[in-house]
């Protein structure tokens, strides 16, 4: 059963009258950590990004023709089937997410993990298999603009998200503005994202009242879709890939960051984060030497 307590629409946390400034703490504030330090000059090159979704149309102009790997997962009476031959997008949703990621991290290595298809057979199990595939195949960051509310998968996704966390794999999840749980977006070890009403892809916020921790553009934004087209869409599905793109750029420059370090850096760089440090000494100098 869903929670008896109505959940808020998570995106409301990022509206101007609700959004509160986040106090920084030196040196982990904007004096200590700058966007230039975090991802200045990074294109996401060398970073493996899994898009767990409906597939990716590689030849869409926004994707640029190159996908580094494919797996299409489905379930039939014999169990799960993993197909690594190239596939196309079933709906446009995965191409939209991949296009947003690539717009921020143009040289990241995209992997299409297709778990949304024309049947619902075993959909939650297929989704979980997609996350497991990403963990076991050395992905550096995953975009999950989908979720399940099936309570019986609470444990499965809890185990998977912990495993990803321990292997330094950030899972960026779209929050669901629906009463009741949505897994794995509500777990503490993932980066849960809702839409704010800005359109600047560089603009993101941190929410002091999780479970949804970050807000990124997702309202009336143009995204690539099927048939080499572009449509204007609204949904948390399209906020998450913005954060995924930032993480890809960040890991392109600082490849050994853990998930909690990634979260800490994003929090310090959020547009509502307020620097409190006036100390000129920053971690920029020390961090850039590694």
């Amino acid at each position, binding site marked *: *059963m*869903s929670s008896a307590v109505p959940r808020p*629409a998570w*995106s409301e946390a990022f509206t101007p009258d609700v959004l509160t400034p986040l106090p920084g703490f030196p040196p982990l504030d904007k004096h200590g950590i700058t966007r230039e330090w975090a991802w200045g000059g990074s294109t996401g090159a060398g970073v493996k990004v899994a898009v767990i*979704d*409906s597939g990716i149309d590689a030849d869409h102009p926004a994707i640029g023709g190159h996908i580094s790997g494919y797996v299409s997962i489905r379930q039939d009476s014999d169990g799960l089937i993993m197909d690594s031959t190239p596939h196309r997008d*079933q*709906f*446009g*949703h995965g191409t939209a997410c991949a296009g947003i990621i690539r717009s921020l991290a143009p040289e990241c290595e995209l992997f299409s993990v297709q778990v*949304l*298809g*024309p*049947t*619902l*057979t075993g*959909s939650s199990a297929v989704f979980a298999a997609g996350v497991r595939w990403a963990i076991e195949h050395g992905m550096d960051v995953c975009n999950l*603009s*989908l*979720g*399940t*509310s*099936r*309570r*019986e998968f609470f444990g499965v996704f809890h185990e998977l998200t912990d495993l990803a966390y321990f292997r330094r794999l950030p899972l960026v999840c*779209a929050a*669901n*503005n*629906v*009463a*009741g749980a*949505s897994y794995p977006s509500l777990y503490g070890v993932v980066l849960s994202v809702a*839409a704010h*009403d800005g359109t600047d892809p560089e603009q993101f916020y941190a929410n002091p009242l999780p479970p949804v921790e970050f807000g990124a553009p997702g*309202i*009336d934004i143009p995204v690539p*879709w*099927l*048939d080499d*087209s572009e*449509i*204007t*869409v*609204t*949904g*948390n*599905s399209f906020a998450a890939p913005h954060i995924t793109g930032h993480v890809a750029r960040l890991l392109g420059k600082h490849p050994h960051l853990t998930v909690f370090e990634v979260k800490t850096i994003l929090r310090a760089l959020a547009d509502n984060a307020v620097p409190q440090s006036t100390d000129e000494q920053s971690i920029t100098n020390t961090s850039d030497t590694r």
Partner: protein
Amino acid sequence: MSRTPDDVDAVDRYPAVDARFVADLRAALITARAADMLSAPPPDDLLLDRLIRAAAHAIPSPEGALFLLDHDRNLLIFDTVVGSTAEKVKGLTMPLGHGIAGLVAVSRQPIAVANAQEHPRHARDIAAQSGYFPTTILAVPVIAPDGTMLGVLELLDRQRQPTYSLDDLNLLTAFAELAALLVAQRQQRGVMAALLGQALASLTGLPPETRQSMVARSDAFLASVEANPGTRRTVELATLVAAISERGPTELQACIGVLEVFADYVRSVQTPEFGMELLT
């Protein structure tokens, strides 16, 4: 509905059916009918229709539809439709594999599309079957309290604003939660009806054809009970009590109190047949 009380007598006389069972069944059906009237006065279909109309009014939209999932065939079915396309598309099906509604069904994520008309393929879930090409689409999942995906609630062509907003998306999601409860309730009733049918079919060791005949006669019996003037009066009474109960618990309690006093009076001065006449 056109059966007469003679059919009830015919069921009563059916040799393979125990008379006590018939009496119990009669009492159970009448009680269930009356209780149903009291507890859920409007039928589920009407409630769903009103719910979608309310959603389309609150989020000004000329067209609205509730799609239900057929899990076995991977289809979406136009279940309840309001607007100009309602008569054309109601009951039609479409494969789950494409379109905005299909995407919402498989991803469980709500989505709003602003410029669908420029790319008709994205709106083909409705356009292909109705000839209606929307400019804006808002679609949210309908998920049962246990997490089961039931369908998709969709509105088309936002009025007074160029696009559906995030507030619209959240509001329609609240309507979808109500729709999920109604759909789940309707499905549970369907399961109950099927169970009752199976129970009737397996009551005795009768041959299949006899059991089938018995089920048919049970259906006729139910129809005749509904057509019975006495039952109609019971339904009228139930409707009256339901109307009073809508005023609040105090009014309902007062109503029950008055009825109990009257029932005590009736029992004291009338024969039991009076009660049977009232209820049958």
